[in-house]
């Protein structure tokens, strides 16, 4: 579960996120949309503990990310928008490395790594060093690494960038399965069809403020009031 309570983040005089409040319960896949520079990545980084909020509180599975970062992060998985990996480690080594960071038992790591390698169909090149990977390969490793420790919450920033159609399908199905299994997911994306297909609820952020937030049904009703397209809703709201 993710709870953002009146979260604000400023950089000097610029307010990137302005008094944002969202709650994502277990089992919900929340789509986080917004134009470039709206504050999506800043929000995600605050949830992941990479940015400290200027004010407000971020609670991840009952733990405040600022005051109890280790407890919060133990239950969390983060997939960044740029899937940087350690160039000199192989994909497999990176998966084991991440498993170790979450203090998983060795036999459990063996099993989980084997599972995610098979699930994401990365076995053919997972033993190459990451410096030789394409953007899509890195993205798949980065998403696979997020699932190794079986998190309760996943925050994922632009997961479809660089993925081929087959990988994109695997990732979409995986996210749906995880949500079905009770994992709360916050997904930022620019792909409106993906958001429409996957998300239980969609929030649109613009100039750091949450300007729209509704369930799939509510959103469809709103779409119908316009021309039936999410794109039109998005463009209208972020005008």
């Amino acid at each position, binding site marked *: 579960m993710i709870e953002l309570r009146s979260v604000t983040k400023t950089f000097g005089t610029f307010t990137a996120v302005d008094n944002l409040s969202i709650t994502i319960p277990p089992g919900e896949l929340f789509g986080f949309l917004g134009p470039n520079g709206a504050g999506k990545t800043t929000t995600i980084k605050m949830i992941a503990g*990479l940015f*400290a909020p200027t004010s407000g509180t971020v609670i991840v599975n009952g733990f405040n990310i600022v005051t109890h970062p280790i407890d919060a*992060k133990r239950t969390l998985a983060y997939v*960044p928008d740029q899937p940087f990996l350690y160039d000199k480690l192989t994909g497999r080594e*990176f998966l084991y490395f991440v*498993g170790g*960071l979450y*203090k998983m038992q060795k036999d459990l790591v063996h099993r989980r790594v084997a599972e995610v390698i098979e699930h994401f169909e990365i076995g053919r090149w997972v033993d190459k060093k990451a410096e030789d990977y394409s953007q899509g390969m890195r993205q798949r490793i980065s998403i696979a690494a997020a699932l190794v420790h079986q998190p309760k919450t996943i925050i994922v920033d632009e997961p479809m960038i660089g993925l081929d159609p087959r990988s994109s399908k695997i990732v979409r199905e995986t996210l749906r399965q995880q949500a079905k299994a009770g994992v709360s997911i916050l997904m930022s994306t620019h792909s409106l069809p993906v958001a429409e297909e996957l998300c239980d609820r969609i929030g649109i952020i613009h100039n750091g403020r949450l300007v729209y937030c509704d369930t799939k049904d509510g959103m469809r009703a709103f779409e119908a009031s316009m021309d039936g397209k999410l794109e039109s809703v998005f463009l209208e709201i972020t005008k």
Partner: protein
Amino acid sequence: MTLFLHILRYKVRSFLNATFEVSSISVIRGIGSLLVFGGFAVGAYYFSNNITAFVLEQTRTGLYLYHRFISMMLFVFFVAVNMGNVIVSYSTLYRSGEVSYFMTKPIPHITIFLHKFLDNFFYSSTTLFLVAFAVLLGYGTYFGYSWYFFAGVMFFVLIPFMFLAACMAVLVLMGVMRLAGRFGFRPVMGGLFAVYVGFIALFFRSSNPVRLIEQVNRYYPNVDNYLSQLDPGFLNYLPSHWVAEFLFFLARGDVARGVSHAGILLCTVAGMFAVLVLVASRYYYKSWLISLKIQAAASAPYDPEKANVVDFRSSGLLKGALESLVKKEYLTFVREPSQVIHLIVMLVLTTLFVASIGNLNLRIRVTEIQLVTYLVLFAFGGFLVSSVALRFVYPAVSLEGNAFWALRSAPVRPEAILALKFAIGFFIVFFLAFVVSFASNVPFLRFSGRTPLLPWFGLFSAFWMSLAVVGLNLGLGGYFANYNEKNPIRVASTQGATLTFLCTLVFLIVLVVIFLYPLSVYFQSLFIFRPFDRWSIVVPGTLAGMISTAVCGVSFAVGLRSLRRDW
């Protein structure tokens, strides 16, 4: 040419934007840098000025011998700049994303080459220019030269001298790439390394400083004369010798002969640059393609069934996050060729240092000479240890790179990350410091065998020195972290790194000052049998320990704070 200037304009603009970005942190950093660089430049000036005065007036070494020493130092400097450029330009010319980008544009390959070559030269040599100028100022002021001497020597002698080293380095590198395409990268680099070591050994064998001193002393008191009959013939072909000859003749007032040596240097530089451009225009693109081939060959998948020395799948003594972090540190280090090559170079230099001082024959039983020798060895050992720390500990945080998100978003405390990096750095640096300190004390054991205070002093000072030096490098390396730079050598040659190194030197000077008095009393007790109370070294020792702990603690806190900054 138009394209060259076009790219240059935007690179300069980008540089200026980055350099003059006005924020409170950048202003504080700028003032701090200015103070430390200024302080260091003043220190280098006074050192150079005083050493020139001391050597020429106190020891009456004479102009000829002094300039031969300068020639030797310039030779070492030339080789260091040359080797440094071989290593750094491999990254700049062959592994840079910018080069890959330019290669997709309609830009002549020679334009790309010249940009990257000049970028490499000025990026890695800016601090050396400052040091060279401060030393030159100190040297020239002793002889009372005018301002135009300094400007002229800097622009027409010292910068061309370093530029020549860089040109030769890149020519060597392109040769290496050609051979590597045929014989493999590692064997060729190994061969090149052996050639360099052999060349340095041959130089010092042929121009043995001790033999030279003895030969020059035969001509005493006419030691300011031009005793070129003592020079081995091959010296005439070395650029370091031309620079030393230029300075020597100027010091004797023979401007024409001095300028002729500068002329030889400038002609050689022009010729070498022309050769470089010619070779690069024909061969740079081909060698770049070879580098891609070498990189592709190195990217063959690892055999997952084959157990490695350090394998993430196997269980070790360590558990959980610590195990993961240690294995990651190890693998990312040994798989980076520049790290391994530099480590070998550092170990060879340390071995040479240890072997040379181990055989030191201290025949003159005079308190002052023994004390100065001891302190010089102590400071030089500290300098060596500081260099190792700068090269390997300072970049430790930066080298996490953009993949640091994986650690920062994982349930691992920043303290644990930094503490592990500190422990690894401390282990290596303390080991080296201990070996160097032990070797430095060996020549003195003949006098102090019955009272083994010096080895104990060496051990404790090595410990405190390592603690502070590692703390400083790790902490300030974190504070000035540049996560976008993948090349550890470039990280260790940034402005922040230089600042850290200067802070380390200041710390070493403080240590020398603290121990000066008790050691002086101790050496007096050995040679003139003045009573020595062992407790008299306890107070300075405690003070040194407190300062080292404080330096380490404050630096660690600074580094930790930077790890908690927004990512």
